[in-house]
């Protein structure tokens, strides 16, 4: 009602008693804040407590840092931790290299540029589980299309997903296949934003296209590189659906990551341990990504 009177009388007489209302009301934050606070922040804070308990949803017993100690003691849990870091490094590294190369290729005067951009980007939009299942079939050691294709070339293909030493990397390759389109698109945006004058000047100085790439494109699309690294690194650390669709962490625990451990412990009813896994993942992301961001951004400021 107060609002009604304000609009009704404000134009006629300026009322000294009425403070000018801000046109940017604070309650606009409210719906988002409630949903985000209750469903995201509250569980995150609660996880800090529950990770220190033995817990079955109805009752929880405080056991101190036992869950975390277990994470650092059990070989299969350590394996998950190490795998997570390897996976994140491999996928983000490959996405940076391949994404940049594809972007350079797709911003050059190449034929069928639009078609190629679409083809590279489309897998980003496809269901991860669908991609995972498809590649599980394609990567079958004897009946899979990949190894049959390699056999035609006279190469004996490896047991992509059944070899314990290879399973994690095979999943990482599929992750790159699906995600490189996003890296490429980010790089294309970065490269297109570089002023053409630089290339013009380089051309007059007689630079080769490799020198163009090394001394103009690479340094000037640095913001894109930072974005791609951070984005795919966080994504790699958190990855769950692709691993679950392809190997379920197997064979054995060979391709387990922290995220798949969280799910397995949840299924097994070890809720405290599962939550500790969540906190471990949170710490892992904080410990690796925050310094990485600062490092990448600081170097950028120097140049």
């Amino acid at each position, binding site marked *: 009602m107060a609002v009604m009177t*304000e609009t009704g009388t*404000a*134009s006629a007489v300026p009322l000294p008693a009425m403070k000018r209302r*801000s*046109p*940017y*009301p604070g309650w*606009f*934050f409210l719906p*988002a804040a409630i*949903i985000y606070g209750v*469903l*995201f922040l*509250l*569980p*995150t804070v*609660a*996880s800090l407590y*529950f990770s220190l308990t033995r*817990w079955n*949803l109805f009752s929880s017993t405080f056991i101190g840092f036992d869950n975390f100690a277990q994470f650092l003691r059990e070989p299969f849990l350590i394996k998950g931790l190490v795998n997570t870091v390897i996976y994140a490094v491999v996928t983000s590294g490959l996405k940076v290299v391949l994404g940049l190369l594809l972007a350079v*290729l797709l911003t050059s*005067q*190449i*034929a*069928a540029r639009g078609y*190629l951009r679409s*083809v590279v*980007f*489309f*897998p980003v*939009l*496809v*269901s*991860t*589980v*669908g991609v995972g*299942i*498809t*590649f599980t*079939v394609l990567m*079958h050691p004897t009946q899979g*299309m990949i190894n049959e294709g390699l056999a035609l070339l006279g190469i004996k293909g490896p047991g992509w997903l059944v070899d314990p030493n290879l399973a994690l990397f095979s999943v990482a390759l599929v992750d790159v*296949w699906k995600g490189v389109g996003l890296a490429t*698109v*980010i790089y294309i*945006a970065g490269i297109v934003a570089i002023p053409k004058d630089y290339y013009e000047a380089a051309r007059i100085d007689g630079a080769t296209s490799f020198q163009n790439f090394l001394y103009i494109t690479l340094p000037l699309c640095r913001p*894109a590189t930072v974005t791609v690294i*951070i*984005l795919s690194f966080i994504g790699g650390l*958190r990855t769950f*659906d692709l691993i679950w*669709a392809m190997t379920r962490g197997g064979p054995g625990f060979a391709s387990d990551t922290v*995220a798949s451990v969280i799910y397995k412990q*949840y299924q097994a009813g070890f809720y405290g341990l*599962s939550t500790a896994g*969540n906190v471990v993942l*949170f710490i892992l*992301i*904080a410990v690796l990504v925050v310094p990485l961001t600062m490092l990448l951004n600081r170097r950028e400021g120097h140049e």
Partner: protein
Amino acid sequence: MSFVRRYWLGAVAILASGVVFLVPFAFIILTTFKDQKQSALRDFSWPDGNHLWSNILEVVTTRNWMLLTAFINSTILTVASVTLLVIFAAMVGFVLQRRKTRFNGLIEFLILAGLMIPPAVVPTIWLLQGIGLFGKLHGMILIEVAYGLPFSIILYRAFIATIPRELDEAAIIDGARPFDVFFRVILPLLWPVTVTNIVVQSVAVFNDFTNPLYYLPGNANATVQLTLYNFQSQFQTSYNLLFTNIALITIPPLLVFLFFNRQIVAGMTAGAVKG
């Protein structure tokens, strides 16, 4: 670049992209046309006869029309959560960009935290059970809103910065209430970024597998991504049905890709660079 070299490079690129990116999709499509026996060979061959229709019929009707239920569930989930997401994120983005208070730093920190921190799974389930939303579609809708907010707010705030403040002030002088300033004056101007938001978040929610797996158990509530997971064991020997299922749930993202390619690329790169 010389004419010959340009086309030579183009030809190589088309060939390589075909092998790497198109063959897997071609494999999916070819398999949807095969019968069970031929699909069991899992090879890249031309189907003997067209079994597409019977495959679709079988996939859709199996387990009591579960795929159909799942499509309805996924549609409700996507439409409802993206609608709420767009409105709430635009409201936050607007006030956050316009009003400088001492809370802005905290809010921005929370937004970045939301982009980085993985959701705490079991405590969330515990909380959802406490408020009676666990395993319910509306609970899932709110979860998707909560998880999608940071990204959408960032997109909106960046776009709102390009809209002059004079517009709000003019509306206020004309006697509009704050509510009307936003919903009648500002929100319509945000249409381009709203489209981007709708497209990017729809694809994300529709393709979400992990969150429904945790928070929405049960066959009656299955979303399309979960049907794939549920059918994986059932269809272990029926690759024709498994891949028909994959093909069917790929159609909505394909349509989005065909009609909104530009917006989705713009949204993903803009959001990424700002994030």
